[in-house]
């Protein structure tokens, strides 16, 4: 199926770093823009590597690596306007980075020191979330809110907005995801469903979730689906830009299937050697999302070794910073959590908290 798929999808830069023509889509950026995307991909990969290492050292309890999915994440993120709402799943570190979310805020939840420690309105970037497929419905609702705000399909394109929501191939089997398709279609909600088909849902191959390419699911719900080379940052940006513009214009939802690969483990708790062979990984390594851009831009002369060295230095500095950020995260104090259950905290909860505090203090006295 992968082979057939390869013919089927939107690609603008091939694995060897050659630009490819596509009848419907083209990259609107310059080579300098592309260099910026390359930088974002490299730094995303570094962040991911640092977090993975932090988990190994016991500083994080768990980490879901984005390794291999940098193009899908950075490319799509480049197409998103500040006024668009992003609804991530739990692996969109590259989207967060491009969005300007302080990555430190992503670490607490994996360290176990926080739930999800940022305000979603700060960067219009929703909370990381865990229930597979559970966040797609609220994405549609956010789009319906935009419609009611008059922020969809208005005469001034800059005043319009949309929602982009991220999920995996496995998620497409969830009822909630399909209900999201129903609601988005029915209400023409301005939502881009961005599915990173990284071929695996933990140990389950995509073929278990769908016998046919995932992007075709959309047609059955009455809206377009597109498969894009998820390792091609140009194509991901171009297709996402188109879909977001459709959504903002009031033309309704789109499903984008970014065909990519999870090069690492599902999470640091996972052992992929139990269920997949190294040849598969090797084949995908040859399609690395970063290498092809590097090759292209070096050939173009947009970047050179010096540029790459500078980036490596920046990357090292950020790595150091993230390590320090992580170990410096404040420890959670259970006493704080009683008034994070309700906006209007019932009296009994406060009493329960006070009892807890007194109980805990009794040990300190002793």
């Amino acid at each position: 199926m992968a082979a057939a798929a390869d013919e089927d999808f939107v690609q603008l830069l091939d694995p060897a770093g050659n630009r490819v023509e596509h009848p419907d889509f083209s990259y609107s950026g310059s080579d300098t823009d592309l260099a910026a995307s390359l930088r974002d991909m490299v730094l995303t990969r570094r962040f991911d590597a640092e977090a993975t290492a932090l988990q190994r050292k016991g500083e994080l309890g768990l980490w879901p690596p984005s390794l291999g999915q940098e193009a899908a994440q950075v490319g799509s993120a480049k197409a998103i306007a500040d006024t668009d709402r992003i609804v991530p799943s739990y692996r969109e570190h590259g989207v967060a980075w491009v969005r300007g979310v302080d990555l430190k805020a992503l670490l607490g939840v994996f360290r176990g020191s926080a739930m999800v420690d940022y305000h979603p309105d700060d960067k219009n970037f929703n909370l990381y979330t865990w229930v597979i497929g559970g966040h797609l419905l609220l994405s549609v609702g956010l789009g319906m809110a935009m419609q009611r705000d008059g922020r969809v399909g208005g005469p001034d394109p800059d005043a319009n907005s949309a929602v982009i929501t991220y999920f995996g191939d496995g998620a497409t089997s969830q009822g909630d995801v399909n209900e999201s398709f129903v609601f988005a279609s029915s209400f023409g909600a301005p939502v881009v469903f961005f599915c990173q088909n990284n071929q695996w849902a933990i140990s389950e191959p995509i073929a278990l979730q769908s016998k046919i390419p995932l992007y075709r699911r959309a047609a059955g719900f009455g809206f377009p689906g597109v498969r894009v080379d998820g390792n091609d940052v140009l194509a991901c940006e171009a297709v996402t830009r188109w879909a977001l513009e459709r959504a903002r214009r009031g033309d309704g939802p789109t499903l984008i299937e970014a065909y990519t690969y999870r090069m690492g483990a599902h999470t640091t708790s996972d052992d992929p050697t139990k269920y997949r062979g190294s040849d598969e990984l090797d084949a995908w390594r040859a399609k690395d999302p970063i290498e092809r851009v590097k090759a292209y831009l070096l050939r173009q002369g947009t970047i050179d070794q010096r540029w790459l060295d500078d980036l490596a230095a920046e990357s090292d500095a950020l790595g150091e910073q993230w390590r320090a950020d992580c170990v410096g995260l404040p420890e959670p104090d259970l006493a704080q959590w009683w008034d994070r259950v309700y906006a209007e905290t019932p009296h009994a909860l406060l009493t329960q908290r006070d009892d807890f505090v007194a109980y805990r203090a009794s040990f300190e006295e002793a």
Partner: protein
Amino acid sequence: MATMTMVKALNAGLRRALAADPKVLLAGEDIGNLGGVFRVTEGLKAEFGGDRVIDSPLAESGIVGTALGMALGGYRPVVEIQFDGFVFPATNQILTQVARMYHRSHGRVNVPMVIRLPYGGGIGAVEHHSESPEAYFAHTPGLKVVAAATPSDAYWMIQQAITSPDPVVFMEPKRRYHEKGEVDTEAIPMPLHQAKVVKPGKDVTVLAWGGMVRPCLEAAIVAAGEGKDVEVIDLRTISPLDDDTILTSVARTGRAVVVHEAMGTLGVGAEIAARIQERCFYALQAPVLRVTGYDMPYPPNRAEADYLPDLDRVLDAVDRSLAF
């Protein structure tokens, strides 16, 4: 002061909420042109438009999940679940998303959302149309749960639930939908999360909510004829429970009977009994008794009269409590 049914009172309360705040939205199956299968939303789509009174596709998870999104987008959605027994497809959204957003966000994001749940038996309905699922929600931190027993409470409580910053499961006893009562639309309502002593008494405290308040009041009248002075409390709020009102009463009477339609095991009566014995241990003259639905799924409706707590069963428990 007007006399109206609970259906009309809810309709009036919703209308007032829609008029008062343009951010208030309604969503659910058949709530638009039809006005809902119980006509609670009758006329509201015509008055406020289809963008604010939304007929939703037939999917409860979708209804709740998209409403959550609208709440995060600055609206105050009120969703109608058509019948109690059809809330379960939405469980995941309610329990893991709606109830948790405030907690997950460290208190940064609240969810002002109401889930209207026509509930309970006594209406001669088929399976899934007579259930009382409040305990599932009351066991879920992050949700508030209330139940209206009268048109007046329905009118006020729905508006209070809508202005609540927290998600509220709003239980409407179907069997009381068409009973009339006085509604003072100018009154200053009591706080949403406060129980009400609807009949003071000194011998035994009977606790109920929603559809069960009425048989308890009837039992109190009969008991009074037999010289037993029953205090009846309409809980109104199930989560949080109004401990003060409950415990103060039982501390005084020394006896308590909790009445609800849901099955007894792990019904809300269990929590109330557990709290009372914890906090009024020495005051108790008798164990807290529970008069509840039996530990089975709701039976065929021609047997529901035997299944549902009624005047006689409440009286029986009152007598057993007093005789203990």
